[in-house]
């Protein structure tokens, strides 16, 4: 008999590993993605594929430069997922180089400059989104109406839209819900008229509105997020605290000044709030690890989103809110520690007879 391997306990392992986690997140994202791709047609599909391919390419290049094992790390799914999230947050008919730039920023600056998988301080996809938003305000805010089952541009036309930058097809551009509310409010329109123009909340809930490629359908994103929770990939804490704090703050503001603030249900279903709550804020690497820490982090993000949406220069504040709270994560982790078994929160052994 060959002497067996001597390795210390435990000798068994759960079935989960990094790539399975990434694949599960992608699976949960796919309903909302499929909906977005269907409703924004061929140009969206082209952009989606180009962005993910670019993310993978940048990942391979970065790994090669860093001298890390390419096959093992490039196939772990993290680069594809980052590219996927970047793509979903782009305007669906944006030209190809926006997607490639976004993927490059996310993978190279957001991730590998910090040391690769697990080392980045900021959420790579949000770094890309924020930089694109600041650097390319026109391309990043050119929205199109969903096709709603119309034929839309053909495959060849859409190649022209994505790659040539000269739309042969008439782009039916429109504002997203949040930018519409913002500009109308700035123009001094009363809130009830703005709301009447926007139409019902249902369209936003189902996703029949203009917006980023994969962020329009709040309902499908919610379903995917619930699957993530059921698969135990994320806990309920971050989504609940993000959504809860936005709801409470916007509700309070709306009750105080209904003429100035849209009602909370508009906040809940518009923009990338649901996407952020379940898929972006819950990014493992850049969020705190303990329950208390996650709660602080989630409430921080929700509050910042509401503040930026209401008083900031941008109609949507998800990227900035997430990045700001990412920066706080090490601090939160340092202070929000779990209580050690048999000790008080301050680390002293429990007193005998202490019924806790």
């Amino acid at each position, binding site marked *: 008999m060959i002497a067996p391997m001597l390795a210390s306990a435990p*000798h068994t*392992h759960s079935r989960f590993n990094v790539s399975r986690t990434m694949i599960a997140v992608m699976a949960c994202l796919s309903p909302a993605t499929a909906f977005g791709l269907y409703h924004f047609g061929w140009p969206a599909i082209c952009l989606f594929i180009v962005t993910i391919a670019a993310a993978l390419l940048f990942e391979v290049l970065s790994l090669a430069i860093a001298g890390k094992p390419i096959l093992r790390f490039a196939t772990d799914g993290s680069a594809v997922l980052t590219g996927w999230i970047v793509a979903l947050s782009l305007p669906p008919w944006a030209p190809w180089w926006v997607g490639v730039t976004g993927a490059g920023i996310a993978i190279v600056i957001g991730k590998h400059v910090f040391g690769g998988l697990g080392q980045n301080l900021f959420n790579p996809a949000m770094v890309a989104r924020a930089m694109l938003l600041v650097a390319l305000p026109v391309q990043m805010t050119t929205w199109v109406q969903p096709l709603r089952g119309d034929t839309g541009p053909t495959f060849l036309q859409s190649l022209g839209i994505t790659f040539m930058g000269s739309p042969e097809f008439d782009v039916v551009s429109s504002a997203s819900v949040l930018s519409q509310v913002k500009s109308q409010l700035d123009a001094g329109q009363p809130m009830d008229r703005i709301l009447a123009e926007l139409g019902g909340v249902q369209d936003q809930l189902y996703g029949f509105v203009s917006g980023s490629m994969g962020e329009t359908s709040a309902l499908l994103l919610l379903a995917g997020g619930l699957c993530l929770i059921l698969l135990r990939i994320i806990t309920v804490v971050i989504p609940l605290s993000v959504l809860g704090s936005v709801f409470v703050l916007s509700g309070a503001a709306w009750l105080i000044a209904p003429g100035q603030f849209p009602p909370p249900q508009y906040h809940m279903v518009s923009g990338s709030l649901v996407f952020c709550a379940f898929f972006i804020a819950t990014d493992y690497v850049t969020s705190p690890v303990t329950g208390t820490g996650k709660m602080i982090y989630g409430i921080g993000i929700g509050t910042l989103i509401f503040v930026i949406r209401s008083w900031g220069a941008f109609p949507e504040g998800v990227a900035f809110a997430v990045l700001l709270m990412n920066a706080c994560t090490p601090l939160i982790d340092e202070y929000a520690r779990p209580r050690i078994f048999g000790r008080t929160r301050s680390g002293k052994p429990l007193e005998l007879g202490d019924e806790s």
Partner: protein
Amino acid sequence: MTIFPLAGRFDPARLFSFKGGIHPETRKFLTSECAIEDMPVPTVLRVPLQQHIGVEAEPLVARDDMVLKGQLIGKARGPVSANIHAPTSGRVLAVGHFTAPHPSGLPVPTITIRPDGDDRWGDRLPRMRPESADPDEIAAQVAKAGIVGMGGATFPAAVKLNLRARYDLHTLIINGAECEPYLTCDDRLMRERAEEIADGIGIMARALGVKQVIVAIEANKPQATAAMERYHRVLGYALKIKQVPTQYPMGSEKHLVKTLTGKETPARALTAELGVVVHNAATAHAVHLAVRYGEPSISRVVTISGRGITRPANVRALIGTPVAELLAHCGGLAQEPERLLLGGPMMGQPIQNPRVPIIKGTNGILALAASETRDREVMPCIRCGLCVQVCPMGLTPFELNTRIKAGDLEGAARVGLLDCITCGCCSFTCPSNKPLVQTIHFAKGKLAEQESRKHQQEQAKRLAEARQERQEAIAAAKREAMAKRKAEMAAKKKREAEAAAAETPKNGETVK
């Protein structure tokens, strides 16, 4: 139907156990229906003198001595130690050293016996009637029988039975959780020997002088629960049989106490300080045999399992039986095992040499095939926080790991390194397959080494200082003596001079 029966069924222990923990695949089905079988006397027995926590026993036999079954061959030394008895009759081949059943593979003092095949009993311990025996007598009998905690901790049972002298004990908990995957030896023992275990529990309860007794069994062992429930009254004690959730590490003493009583044992304290003592179910069985029949602890039930075993089984084997013979008894190895373990897959010890013997704390021998063990590929930490979620001690294993890797052992100790019970939940669950608990193990050893070195240095420094002080004192005394002598000499000279001065005029006069 009123609401009261329902309210009575509500058991908070089943809802609120403890924070963290994992649910590994138990794979107990491999052996859970295998009745305990007796292993024939093997060709050779190697009985280590160190089978317990504490000082090794002192050998009482020499080479070529004939020993009888149950004869005392190793005498306990010191307050935390245990007697060792001959598991069968035969000739002592050697009193020397043999590889320990431990991953280190270091030699430990071992008595090797060649059984003569007669299995002849020598003098047994005197039988006792626990109904009328004094608690001290029971504890003394358990000590004589050399019984140690059979769940794997191998703490001498008699020492725990004597805790009543120091603590106000009110509850005895019998640990039948058996939360390690694969292992079914306690399950089978409870199913087949429920009456004897119950009797042993009663005896221990009497020795401890407790008021209530709880038998905790994980919910995945309904037959064992049913079997134990038939003996709910022994020696005047009502046994409360409680199902606890199937959750690893339920068998950890402090977590079991927390689940059953809701009380959390303070860090660095014993459960006895809460008035609770925990004993293993197999220990109760050994106590029954020792007290009722005067049989010392010379055999135990071992689960032999894993995909590498041809015929997984539960075997009652003599202490000292080589692992290789037990494997052969179970049809040998079906395939080359990736890992050969003593104990369960979560906390078991890997061994390299199958000739090592089983000891009183060995509850399982597992031959795990590659498909049952972990991958070797390690990915970077992605800070998913699963290790924090599952840690039953409320630690942050990924952070400990980072600090240890950076060489910051003091920092790791500050955030709870020494509170780790090395249950392995973190390593089990880590999606990046990082060796978290293994690193913590290493750091604990390293820290202990540093502490002892520091202690040694301090000792040496103290000795050096004491020496210097002594030398200074000697020198000072010498100086003082010198000064004194000088002063004396000076005084003497002065006196002489004075005397001379006084005499001179006289002389002068006489001269005149």
